[in-house]
């Protein structure tokens, strides 16, 4: 699954009326910033640090309703892992740990400053701090960073399959066989990365790429000591470069972190080392996890996508509980992809019929209503992504319950006046997604379109079912439910994988609607090459409009997550970089 949260780049609170995250919620005490004194209030964590404290000690208990794809920093693609792994795997650059838009600023991690780009845009150079140490006292050098990239999914997908592959796409030497098959004596054979000395690292790109600084915030740039690398077993105990290190690991039960004695605050002013022990428990049933949060036996839900239905109802119905919750903007778009290769959806008017027919309010309710679900989406990019421009081609806001008349006239236009049959695919273990699919089914029935819902397990949904175009064609999955967030905070990061025709893959496909519009593809290329930010933003807005007029995406909700924080936790706030609490800061007051 793609990263679940985008970095919200634009000023979240600056007059974008579609967002209610920073205004008051529709019930309960007023949101907005609360001062650091006094009891925290509802949504306090969105714009301020809740319970700021320097008190050290205690145990932090995280719960997770599944298992991570991997704890190996080279092989993970979940937003919460990118956030959390900074505790033991420091990347070159990272995001500032601060609430509000401040949290979107890039700051140095291992590096001493932002990357220096050459005039032709093909070389990026970084310098790292000297004197940094791994958990075992050995020195961290840029060679460890290079090795980390070589062993990651980019070049060694057979051993470490789960992470992103942006480096392989953008760096020179794309056919490097990976660290495990590297025949050079020091296993540093990747030509796309140079390490002239222990503190300098140089990246060579195939084409200019203005966003490269964002790429190196990925955990794949966290250093890995080659002598201690154990391949598939590394996930059991990654060698730490951050404030905490592994003390135990069980792939079905969870893991425990303890303080790393070889980490210094001076070398890492951003992170905090407060609690003595951090426990992460896997496979806690979702609603049960919420109960444990509410009764205090667990502190934070690591997944960071919000509480389930019952807990939400309890929280929103109880003023006291509500002061412990934050309705965070997650940067996610929930949407339905309308596949262009499955008849009769190959006809754009049939797709438009669906855009008009669906009841947007029902979809919003399915995902949790205005507070826990989010606002009705009218564009592909959510408002928190750079390049967003307000638009509403099919009048979702004016007609939130759908427009049956227009839908029927589109049906006429596409030659299916009596409706047709179509299949909807959804992930069976995600109740909200299934609810939303049912909503679509019901709305389509109203215009004579018979829809059947096919459910697939989320773990293999994109690798085996909805993300495999052949499967989609064979099983007539005309409507595919999904969600998307950018891998980094701007329009390109959001749009490229889901709209570029050349990004359509035989398996693990993210361009679910199989959109392949040559004009769109060209615009994407143009954007990466233009060094001017405002020019890029205009292009992103244009691409968004094309996607909507091609009716290949039915946006449903700009997602929000209702997060709950245990009142004994300190330094809690939402980082807009990941759309959830910043896990590098949290401590315990008792």
């Amino acid at each position: 699954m793609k990263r679940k949260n985008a970095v919200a780049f634009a000023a979240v609170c600056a007059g974008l009326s579609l967002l209610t995250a920073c205004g008051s919620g529709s019930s309960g005490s007023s949101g907005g910033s609360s001062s650091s004194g006094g009891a925290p209030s509802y949504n306090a964590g969105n714009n301020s640090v809740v319970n700021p404290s320097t008190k050290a000690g205690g145990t932090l208990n995280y719960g997770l309703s599944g298992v991570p794809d991997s704890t190996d920093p080279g092989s993970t693609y979940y937003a919460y892992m990118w956030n959390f792994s900074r505790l033991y795997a420091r990347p070159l650059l990272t995001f500032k740990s601060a609430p509000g838009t401040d949290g979107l600023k890039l700051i140095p991690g291992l590096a001493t400053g932002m990357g220096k780009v050459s005039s032709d845009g093909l070389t990026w150079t970084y310098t790292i701090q000297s004197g940094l140490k791994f958990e075992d006292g050995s020195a961290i050098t840029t060679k460890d960073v290079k090795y980390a990239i070589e062993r990651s999914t980019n070049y060694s997908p057979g051993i470490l399959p789960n992470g992103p592959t942006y480096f392989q796409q953008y760096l020179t030497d794309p056919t490097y066989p990976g660290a495990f098959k590297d025949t050079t004596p020091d296993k540093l054979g990747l030509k796309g990365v140079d390490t002239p000395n222990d503190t300098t690292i140089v990246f060579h790109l195939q084409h200019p790429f203005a966003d490269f600084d964002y790429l190196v915030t990925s955990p794949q740039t966290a250093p890995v000591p080659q002598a201690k690398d154990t391949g598939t077993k590394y996930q059991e105990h990654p060698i730490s470069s951050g404030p905490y290190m592994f003390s135990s690991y069980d792939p079905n039960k969870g893991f425990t972190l303890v303080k790393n004695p070889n980490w210094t605050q001076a070398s890492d002013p951003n992170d905090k080392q407060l609690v003595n022990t951090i426990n992460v428990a896997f496979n806690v049933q979702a609603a049960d996890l919420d109960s444990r949060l509410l009764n205090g036996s667990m502190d934070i839900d690591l997944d960071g996508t919000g509480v389930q239905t019952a807990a939400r109802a309890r929280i929103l119905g109880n003023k006291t509980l509500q002061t412990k919750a934050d309705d965070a903007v997650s940067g996610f778009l929930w949407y339905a992809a309308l596949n262009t290769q499955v008849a009769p959806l190959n006809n754009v008017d049939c797709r438009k019929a669906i855009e008009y027919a669906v009841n947007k309010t029902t979809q919003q309710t399915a995902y949790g209503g205005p507070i826990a679900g989010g606002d009705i989406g009218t564009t592909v990019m959510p408002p928190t992504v750079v390049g967003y421009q307000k638009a509403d081609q099919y009048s979702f806001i004016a007609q939130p319950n759908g427009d049956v008349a227009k839908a029927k006239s589109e049906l006429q236009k596409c030659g299916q006046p009596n409706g047709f049959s179509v299949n909807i695919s959804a992930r069976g273990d995600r109740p909200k997604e299934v609810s939303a699919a049912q909503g679509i089914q019901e709305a389509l029935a109203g215009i004579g379109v018979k829809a059947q819902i096919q459910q697939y397990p989320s773990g293999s949904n994109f690798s085996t079912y909805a993300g495999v175009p052949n499967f989609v064609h064979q099983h007539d999955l005309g409507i595919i439910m999904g969600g998307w967030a950018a891998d980094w905070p701007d329009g390109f990061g959001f749009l490229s994988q889901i709209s570029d025709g050349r990004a359509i893959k035989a398996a693990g496909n993210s361009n679910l609607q199989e959109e392949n519009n040559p004009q769109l593809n060209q615009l994407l290329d143009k954007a990466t090459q233009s060094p001017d930010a405002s020019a890029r933003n205009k292009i992103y807005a244009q691409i968004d409009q094309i996607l909507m007029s091609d009716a290949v995406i039915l946006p449903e909700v700009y997602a929000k997550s209702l997060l709950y924080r245990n009142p004994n936790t300190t330094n809690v706030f939402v980082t807009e970089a990941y759309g959830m609490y910043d896990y590098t800061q949290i401590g315990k007051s008792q």
Partner: protein
Amino acid sequence: MITFIVRRLFGAVLMLLVVSMVTFAVFFLVPRIAGQTTDQLATQYVGRNPNPTEVHAMEVKLGLDQPIYVQYGRFLKNIVAGEDFDTGTGIVHCPPPCFGYSFKNQQEVWPQMLSALPVTGSLALGAAVIWLISGVGIGVLSALRRGTVFDRAAMSVALAGVSLPIFFTALLSLAIFRDSIPLFPDAGNYISITVDPGKWAEALVLPWVTLAFLYAALYARLTRAGMLETMNEDFIRTARAKGLSERKVVVKHGLRATLTPIITIFGLDLGLLVGGAVLTESAFSLPGLGRFAVNAINNQDLPEILGVTMLAGFFVVAANLIVDVLYAVVDPRVRF
């Protein structure tokens, strides 16, 4: 006696082999019947953005492209002789019994099962003690006080117990005893007994009681019926006629005859339970074999599925064997 045991052992091993063959066949064939190609099967283990070469490489590594008898043969060989696995940085050897490496997270299957076993074991044994004592006790008392208020009340509660879905009672107990009245705030939060016996017990009390409630109800009914039947037998009348005290009649003669079949059933139930109390573990989020199995099936992780099925089958077969031997020892009518 020895030949009896040896013969049964042989039969047990044969049965395990058959179980493994059928399991393998089912999990091998069913996805294919459902229309999945080997490529698709391999894709789900290659992460998010695989290209065809990577998919094929994973196929070969996992042996998915081999015909079924080759894959099965490899599986058998691994159990007995262990397997070599390429971690990238070297070859590790997984010693016998080796159930292979998980397709999904590439960890050895056997240690994962071993780690889940104490959880299921704690759950099963704790509940077993409770249900055996309470279920049989109530059943005996009910039989002896047949027709009284106690009997009716006990049997009604027992009937209710077997009529409720266990996941319902499980979550109800959590709602009441963990969330509303925080009697057991850490229920379901399993801690090993070696780390903290107090928390271990606290985590397991509600699962024990929920599981035991269902089985106690069953056993109470069974025991009552058996006791009633036994107390009508001729040898009981003889014992009474001989002038033995009622207590001696009941305990020394009646109970023994009643309990023998109960113990048989108990052994089988326990064997099945250790193979994975799936529902209870899912309801309480306990990291035992049952939950491990469900996750393995959802991930179509063949080595894990085979491992847990074999382990569960082993417990059932072992329980069968022990019970048969015990029965032969206890009941003089059974000839070897």
